[in-house]
């Protein structure tokens, strides 16, 4: 009976910690991701979640002509790098951070308004059986003095 109670207790602690970690993504986004905005102002939108190794996410956004945007992707230290691409509505790849050593902060100058998609995938550690999970945030910065 005590053994059963022990398992139940562990299960409760696990559930509560998962729930708690969701709330922690805001703190993570504010403390870690916003710091990468530099001279850009964060647009105020909140896009954060918990991802595991190998998992993907996509973000749809309209980018407006004359504005330079900073896309800043942040992850908790333990997670492997994030592979991210920016594609147009036909799937044409416009930027791939794989070509730039998996940089997670990049600027985009928009000369023609477009709806673009930011595709992300958490890379997997080779040969690892366990999968690590953690907060991933995508923030958009706006150049303060647009052209």
């Amino acid at each position: 009976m005590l053994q059963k109670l022990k398992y139940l207790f562990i299960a409760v602690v696990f559930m509560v910690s998962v729930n708690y970690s969701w709330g922690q993504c805001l703190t993570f986004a504010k403390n870690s991701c916003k710091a990468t905005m530099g001279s850009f102002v964060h647009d105020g939108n909140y896009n954060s979640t918990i991802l595991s190794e190998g998992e993907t996410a996509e973000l749809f956004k309209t980018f407006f002509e004359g504005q330079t945007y900073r896309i800043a992707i942040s992850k908790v230290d333990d997670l492997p790098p994030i592979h991210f691409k920016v594609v147009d509505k036909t799937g044409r790849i416009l930027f791939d951070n794989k070509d730039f050593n998996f940089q997670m902060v990049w600027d985009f100058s928009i000369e023609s308004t477009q709806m673009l998609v930011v595709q992300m995938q958490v890379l997997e550690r080779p040969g690892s059986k366990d999968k690590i999970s953690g907060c991933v945030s995508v923030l958009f910065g706006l150049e303060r003095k647009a052209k």
Partner: protein
Amino acid sequence: MKNIFYSSIKLFGIVIIAALLAVSCNFDGKKGQKASIIDTVEIDSQFIDNFAKSKLIFYSLPSPLETAMLIKRAGVVYNEEILNPIDNISKYTTNRQMALNLGIYSADLSYASLFDQTQSSLKYMANSKKLAEGLGIMDAIDENTIKRLEENMNNRDVVMDIISESFMNSNAYLTENDRPALAVMVLVGGWVEGLHIATTLSNISDDNNQKLIEKIIYQKLSLYTVLNLMETYKGSNEDINELYSKMNELRVIFDKVKIVNTSNVEAQTDPEKRLTTIKAESETFMSKEVFESLCKKVKEIRSQFIS
């Protein structure tokens, strides 16, 4: 002793079910959703395949701050009369009214502050704080936020940072506390107010401000983002259902607006500057009649939101 054990197990059982419910609520409408993209913009099949495989989809609307920057860049003037009156706040008692008008006042605050309207900005921030409190997200905008705003009113960069942080806090607290539908309503309220400000100002200006009309035309793309964002919660939330049908009324009008890319979207990357320039040739068309019916519909929806 045995009874105590059974009681303990019952108690743990209840706690576990509650924890499971809490977790499932957090994940509800987010993970594993195969949201359907509104297929008015042409999209190839490979793209849809990739999209469907994704575990998580985000839809990012132009925030109140971004919209205000777009409006200001179109060369318009400040006009306080078109904003939601400060005193209207006493009308907002339901969660839906508070969420929509938190978005609306956030848009008004962004517009006022970009035009250095100190007193109005403080009033709109105070209203946003009251609505955030009404929604139970006291920490989103607190006394310290107002104080920092007062102290930095002459520093537009700091003011923009404060507005950005307040909006992010409101959005995040609602999303992460099992109230994502309310977070969506805040975003929709802010987007509609931005559209209201833009359409109204374009009618007021003598030359019908072509730059501003161009920005309005491209809100057609943002509208698809709005609709897809709402799709996630449609069906499970009556308020979202109703708002969705209003946004669909806007869509019927926007469908008559033409945006055509006449070339491929091209990108040039400068690795040293860590900058990619994205360009394409495109043509847009919106008839006078369509523009008038769009302005009328925006006015109608926005009036319902603020009354």
